Each structure stands twice: as structure tokens, then as C-alpha cells.
């Protein structure tokens, strides 16, 4: 089963990008304590994102005519792997680079591509995702935010929630209902690019359990958008959002959310000189899972590179990957607490505490564990 997911290798030729990403990431995190590096995904640093853009490390999968690198999904894999391994602050360009840009490239008009893509590649146009609503989490097709046609464009009313980095973003790509009702499910949904500075848009940050405020509620009250806010076809929002999620779910980011903590723990073990059998077995069990996941993620990237949309395969990687990311802090907490005689740095403790608190979100963001397993089951011919 899933025989199309076979061993693939990162092709030679992207090593220049890896070295460059490594250097810029190392500079960006040089002064950062471990617990800030562990925030990589939610670490917002627009200057750093622009620096990556200037170095040609954003929009790697996009054609050169739009300012992209035209290097393909493996180049992006290599760069993202280096950024996350270092714990670099990637939040500012994260969504635009990963999914908004491919979406605009695939479904946008020529004018939309020319307007947005070059700025995304420079790290200057920051995007957020408008999917979840108060009443629409896993059941995404039930969204109630509505856009009605007006003489000059669209009028949007409704609310999004859990929108990461919306306060600092320029645009949101929102999934909205343009016809019918919630009962029509997948029909009548469309995607709109919302300029977040448009009058009628109100953004209210939500503090998370770790004290950060990276996500928000976004309210739309008679927000007037131009006609060309529509991305892709009216009524095709569900199909588009499904393709977008394949990009969201298949990258190396679904393995490395806890990697900064893992490396911090390894440094601790080396510093205190502990490598007895039990410790080595625990370390080995973690690195073995990471190795298997990396092989799976590279195999998935090969499907993307072949022009496929590996929705089911990406779900396999993400579900297994987030389980690994979530087990890491639990295992490390147990290991450290079982060796009370060892001095543990405050930095490592804070990192562990942070990852422990936010780890449940790993299997929520981008599709919950249960939803992914449902997708896999359908891919297996069940139901």
C-alpha cells in the first residue's frame, strides 16, 4: 500500500542553498537563547525574512519571471530544514512562502501573480491563512464568513480565528462562502485575498498558554474588496484549499518542531558525560524515528517535485511526524527528572517547558490527527 511513496534522495545541486541558509540562520540566532529558538515557527522577524529574500532563499519553487528561484520542492526542503534545525525565526515569510505563493501561482490571474509573487520572493508581502472560524475547526466546509458580490467587488462579513501572525501580516487568504449556505458544504466556497489594512477588518490577538500572542481573532464588518480579490474560480474554494493543504502538510516542518529541544538535550548529555545503555537507547529511539520521518518526508517531496499533490502521503508523514514531535518533550522531561543529580541549565528547562506546553498544537495546526487519519483511511479504500 502507498507503493508510490518510495525512497528518494535529495538531488545534488542544492548544497549552495543549504550553506547559505545555514549561514544566515546561524547569524539570526546567534544571540538567541534556546527557548526563543524553539519558537522558530512563531518567531517573527521581518528583517530576517527580507534578508532571506534578498539571498534568493524564498520562493524557491516559483518561476524566475516572478522573482522565484525556479529550483523546485527539494531546494525548499533543504532551506527549510536548515532554518528549522537552527531555530531561525521564520514566521514572517512562512505562510506566504509555503502555501500562499504556490496557490497564487496555480490559481491566480497573470495580474495577481505579477502583483504578489515578486514581493513574496523578496520577503515583503506577508500572508496569513484564513481558514478556521469559531464554529469551523476540523469541519472546515462549514465556514460562515460570507462574501457577497457588489457592483464593484465583494463585501465580506464574518470572523476568522486562530489566525497565526495576522496582526503583522499584509494579507489573508480567506476561505469564504460566496453562495448557498453551510448545508451546501463543499459547494459555494471561494478564496479571497484580503488586504488586512482594508477598513472593517479588526484584529484582536489571543494569548496562548505559553504567554505568546502569535494568533488572533479577525473580524470582517462590511469589508469592501475589489473584484480581483477573488483567487482562482468562484465556487472552487474547497478544491483549492485541499491542494493548498497538501503544501502545508508535506514539508519538513512536520518533523522538526522539537528539534531545537532535542539538540539542547543532546548537548546536555554530552556536557554531563552521560551515555550509559539506557540513555543511549532513548537517544537512539528518538533519532531512529527522526531518520524514518526524514526518509518519508523526502519521499513526499519527490512526489511534489513530480508535479503531484500528495494529499494522503503528506497526511501519513504529518501524523507520524507530529507524534514524534510530541513524544520528544515527554521523554526528555522524564529523562532529566530521573537524573536530579545533574545540573540542567535554565535555558534548557525553559525550552522544555515551552515545548511541553505547546506540543499539543503540533497535531492540531494544519489538520488534526483524527482528520488526517480519516484522509489516510479513505486513501486506503476504507469507507
Amino acid at each position, binding site marked *: *500500500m502507498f507503493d508510490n511513496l518510495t525512497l528518494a534522495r535529495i538531488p545534488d545541486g542544492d548544497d549552495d542553498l543549504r550553506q547559505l541558509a545555514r549561514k544566515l540562520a546561524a547569524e539570526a540566532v546567534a544571540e538567541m537563547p534556546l527557548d526563543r529558538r524553539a519558537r522558530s515557527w512563531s518567531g517573527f522577524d521581518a528583517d530576517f525574512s527580507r534578508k532571506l529574500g534578498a539571498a534568493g532563499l524564498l520562493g524557491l519553487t516559483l518561476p524566475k519571471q516572478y522573482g522565484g528561484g525556479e529550483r523546485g520542492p527539494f531546494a525548499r526542503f533543504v532551506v527549510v530544514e536548515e532554518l528549522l*534545525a537552527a531555530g531561525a525565526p521564520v514566521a514572517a515569510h512562512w505562510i506566504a512562502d509555503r502555501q500562499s505563493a504556490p496557490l497564487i501561482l496555480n490559481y491566480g490571474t497573470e495580474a495577481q501573480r505579477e502583483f504578489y509573487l515578486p514581493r513574496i520572493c523578496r520577503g515583503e508581502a506577508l500572508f496569513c491563512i484564513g481558514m478556521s472560524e469559531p464554529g469551523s475547526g476540523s469541519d472546515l466546509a462549514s465556514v460562515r464568513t460570507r462574501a457577497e458580490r457588489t457592483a464593484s467587488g465583494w463585501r465580506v462579513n464574518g470572523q476568522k480565528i486562530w489566525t497565526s501572525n495576522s496582526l503583522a501580516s499584509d494579507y489573508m487568504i480567506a476561505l469564504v462562502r460566496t453562495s448557498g449556505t453551510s448545508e451546501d458544504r463543499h459547494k459555494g466556497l471561494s478564496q479571497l485575498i484580503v488586504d488586512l489594512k482594508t477598513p472593517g477588518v479588526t484584529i484582536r490577538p489571543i494569548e496562548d498558554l505559553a504567554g505568546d500572542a502569535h494568533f488572533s481573532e479577525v473580524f470582517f464588518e462590511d469589508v469592501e474588496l475589489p473584484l480581483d480579490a477573488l483567487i482562482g474560480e468562484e465556487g472552487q474554494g474547497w478544491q483549492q484549499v485541499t491542494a493548498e493543504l497538501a503544501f502545508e502538510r508535506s514539508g519538513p516542518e512536520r518533523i522538526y518542531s522539537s528539534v531545537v529541544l532535542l539538540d539542547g538535550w543532546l548537548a546536555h548529555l554530552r556536557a554531563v558525560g552521560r551515555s550509559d545503555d539506557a*540513555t*543511549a537507547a532513548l537517544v537512539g*529511539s528518538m533519532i531512529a524515528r527522526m531518520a524514518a520521518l526524514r526518509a*518519508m518526508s523526502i519521499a513526499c517531496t519527490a512526489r511534489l517535485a513530480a508535479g503531484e499533490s500528495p494529499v494522503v502521503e503528506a497526511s501519513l508523514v504529518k*501524523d507520524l511526524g507530529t507524534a514524534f514531535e510530541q513524544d520528544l518533550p515527554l521523554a526528555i522531561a522524564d529523562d532529566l527528572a530521573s537524573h536530579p543529580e545533574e545540573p540542567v541549565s535554565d535555558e534548557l528547562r525553559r525550552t522544555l517547558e515551552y515545548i511541553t506546553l505547546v506540543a499539543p498544537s503540533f497535531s492540531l495546526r494544519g489538520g488534526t490527527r483524527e482528520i488526517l*487519519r*480519516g484522509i*489516510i483511511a479513505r486513501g486506503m479504500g476504507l469507507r
Partner: protein
Amino acid sequence: METNELLEPFERMLAKLFPPSRVREIDSSAEWQDELAEVEASGFLDILAPEANGGAGLPFSAAIALFAALGRHAAPLGIGRAMLERAGYGEAHSANSELVMLSAMMAGAGDRLLAMTTAYANERVQFGKPIGRQQAVQQNLAVMAEHCVAVRLTVELAGDGSGPPDGLRAALAKSVASTAVPLIANIAHSVHGAIGISAEYDLQLFTRRLHAWRAEQGSESRHHRSLGKSLLAGDAKSVDWLRAEIFDEIA
């Protein structure tokens, strides 16, 4: 030669020589020289042997799919061992290739269990519908599939190359395969219910083997230990270590 060109006739032969009834007899200590003679005559035992010795001299990676086929058909371990012996890899390399061979057989047995279990879930009706429509069952089968794919890809990674695998990659393959055994076997049994416990139903041929092969040449903790010792001995970060030692990306 393409692996697929080898695989198809090999699978056909295994299906003919080792039907479940025969597998049961061999499991009860029946001799299988006749089958071995037929496998010998097919030439498959010599695929890894050097050409100078009259073998096909194929790269180790070409044998991975065949080892998996052995597992998928519950064929005797001795066939795979004979292939490795004739490869003439030398002592240390033989141990590593045996680990990867076992892991590949576990991947094959796991795939067979996944196919059997998925098919059964679509057939077995309870509460007026196939149990495969129950979300609880679907979720378990999805997890089983994830682990089967993880085992298969790790085996492909460990076996990738012309020569025999090195120690770390062999340890990786065997540890990932052994770790997955309880989960794969347990879900296969839980979905099958009581029928899977009966001797006459074929499920046990494969779950029995998975448990035996999990322990053969060391189960997961032993191989995790090797991986962990190696990682802790240096100063590389996790991703760099993986790229250098497992993925062969850094010269």
C-alpha cells in the same frame, strides 16, 4: 536488470512453493529440500554472488524487494540467508546485511498484514455495515499504514547502495522495523477479532513471524543503543548527524 523484472517471477515462485498449507508444515518442522532445490534451480540464490563466482553480481539494493517478498509469503528465512552467504560480504558486513534482510522481510510481512486487515475491515459486517466504516477502526488502520510505510522506507534507505549496508544504517532499519512490530501485529489482530486467533486463519502466520523476527539479531532497544552511542560520541547536531551517517549526504 530492473528490480521489478526480478520481483514478479520471484513472487510467482514463492506463491507456488509456499502456500499457507505448506508454510504450516514447515513451521511444524517439515523438511523443505524440494522447495530449496527449486529455488536453487531458479538462480535467485545467486543474485548477489559475484559474477566471478557465477552469480548475477547485483547490488545489494536489488535484493531488498526480494527479501520483502519472502516476508510477504512467509517463506523460509533460509532462502534470504543463502542469498547473503553467496554474496561473500565478509563477517561484519554479513551481520549488517542480515539485519537489513530481516527488516525487509518484516516490511513485507507488515505489508501483507496491512492488506489482509484492510480487506477484512471492508468485508466484516457488524452493526449493519462493514467495520471499516467505523471511524475507530479507520483510525487504527491509518496508524498501522503509517508504520508500515515508515518501516519500508527505512529499509529502502538502509539497503540503498551497491555494497552491503554499514552498521548504523543496518541498526536503523532493524530498530525501526522491530519497534513497529507490536503496533502492526496488535492492530491486525484487534481488527480481525477472534478469527485472527484461530490456527486455521492465515493471520497468525505473519504476526508470529513478526514477533520472532523482532527478536532475531536483537530487538529495538539493542539497536537504538548503537545509534544513540554513536550520536552521543560526537558533537554533531541531530540533523547533521543524520545527513552524514544515515543519509550519506555529507562526504
